[in-house]
């Protein structure tokens, strides 16, 4: 268990999230893929806070943990808003398929 292992884990998680974002057609599923990517960033923060980064000297471990806390709260707020909008879309269109959302075009 070291910094490289944690960063590799987060890299894999981020890539899986990116795959989901590209392939998922259901909007809620796409949002869940987004959560995976955010989670990868959180792992980065905690790993850097725990093991220290590439900087010289003592880092501020608390700053990283606190940033992770803030990021969790922000993501929660964003998700609440996103799902409210998803429900609104569903009410208008009766489906959540991203590819069939084509009311807007030039």
């Amino acid at each position, binding site marked *: 268990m070291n910094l490289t292992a944690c960063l590799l884990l987060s890299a894999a998680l981020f890539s899986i999230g990116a795959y989901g974002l590209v392939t998922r057609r259901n909007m809620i599923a*796409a949002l869940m893929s987004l959560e995976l990517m955010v989670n990868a960033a959180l792992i*980065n923060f905690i790993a850097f806070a725990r093991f220290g980064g*590439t900087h010289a000297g003592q*880092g501020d471990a608390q*700053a990283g943990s606190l940033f992770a806390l803030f990021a969790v709260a922000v993501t929660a*707020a964003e998700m609440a*808003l996103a799902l409210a*909008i998803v429900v609104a879309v569903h*009410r208008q269109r009766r489906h959540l398929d991203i590819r069939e959302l084509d009311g*807007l075009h030039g």
Partner: protein
Amino acid sequence: MTLAEFTPLLPDLLLLALALAVLKIDLWSEDGEAGFHLTWIGLAGLALLLAFGSRSDAVFADYHITAASRVWKLLFTLATLATVFLSRPYFRAGGNARGTLAKSGAFFGLLLLCMQGMFALVSAGNLIVFYLGLELATMPIYALAAYQPRDADSAEAGSKYVLMGGFSSALTLFGISFLYGATGSLGFPALEAAVRAAPADPALWGGIFFLLGGLGFKLAMAPLHMWAPDVYQGAPTPVMAFLSVASKAAAVAALATLFLSPLNAVRPDLAPCFAAAAVLSMVAGNLGAMRQKDLRRFVAYSSVAQVGYMLLAMLGEGDGSRAALVYNLVTYGVTGFALYFIMGVIGKEGPETMSGLRGLSRRHPGLAVLLVLCMFSLAGVPPLAGFLGKFMLFSAAAAEGHYLLVGIAVANAVVSFYYYMLVVKEAYIAPPGEAAAIRLRPLQIMVLWGLGLALLVLGVCPAPADWLARAAGN
């Protein structure tokens, strides 16, 4: 700490109080009139306070009140004020053919909360305030884009914006995590020191890469601009106006906050990156705008092209670039809002599309003249405001020797003249359908005259430019 020490923080605190008051008053007033008046009076007061109030700089932990941040805040305040005036008819029954917006209190409250985020963004002294400001400046717009009631297009615009915005904030967060790894702290001073000490640190570059991606989405710079046309088209027009001026200004401010101060040392290495994005944005925006029938979509592509011009300033040296960016945003805001108010006027009777402009020269000659001024200004024809804005951007880039790039930009500006003239053609030459005369409300007449005069004055009189340059420079 004494109370007097909080004086520089007064605009930020007053804005928060205003936002809460507007949200609260909405619970009591049914017609939303009180909310509207409170909002515009509050914002006007805030603008005066920012322009003529306390000039002293202050630092509260990692929240910096500086002259440059005051200029940005003034810009955001004025853009929001114009949005509030623009949204007026959209809340009136029959004020817009697309449908009436409801609950103006929540609408204005969300705009003000969004502004609070922009204020935090330009005052940020560390990455955490920066990130929260960026999020707060974006998040209310997700809801505002979906604000048109019972409108599938609006809901769709909201959903597209929330997906893209979520992706962009995930990228930003990922980037910040690497910057934290490279510096061990979240403060801008530590970031600046780390950039100086180890400019080749892989974690640093990873962070910058992801951060640029995240901000690029927010800025709608090509090739990350694909969401903009759909969101602009689907959102209610006042929200589109806010997106294209205030939100764009906030994204530019974010870029400037990071890359013109703590990350200034790596900017020369990023020059090819900015140059490529600038050229791509200009070309993508101009090519896209040519084929549009819907005015909101047209504005989206035109604003992508504007982002391209603005990215040129990121190649120039710090102070001059910041001044050029601010001045260009002011001229773009004035021009843009003049166009949006015209859209609001024609939107009362019909759709806000090119064909809706038909016969404007007969229906209201004054409006048609203003439309011509707008288009000339957007194209950068002297002596209008848009020309001076572009000129400052181009000279900022030229001062650092990017002559080829400036040449490409000038060529693009010339090409853009073509499609801006298509709009004018629609208003003057295309055969009108029914030619009912347009009657303006007193507020609309006042605002349109003000914007029209500003278009002319900002183009010929360099005094405001000087003032802005001096204020934003230090």
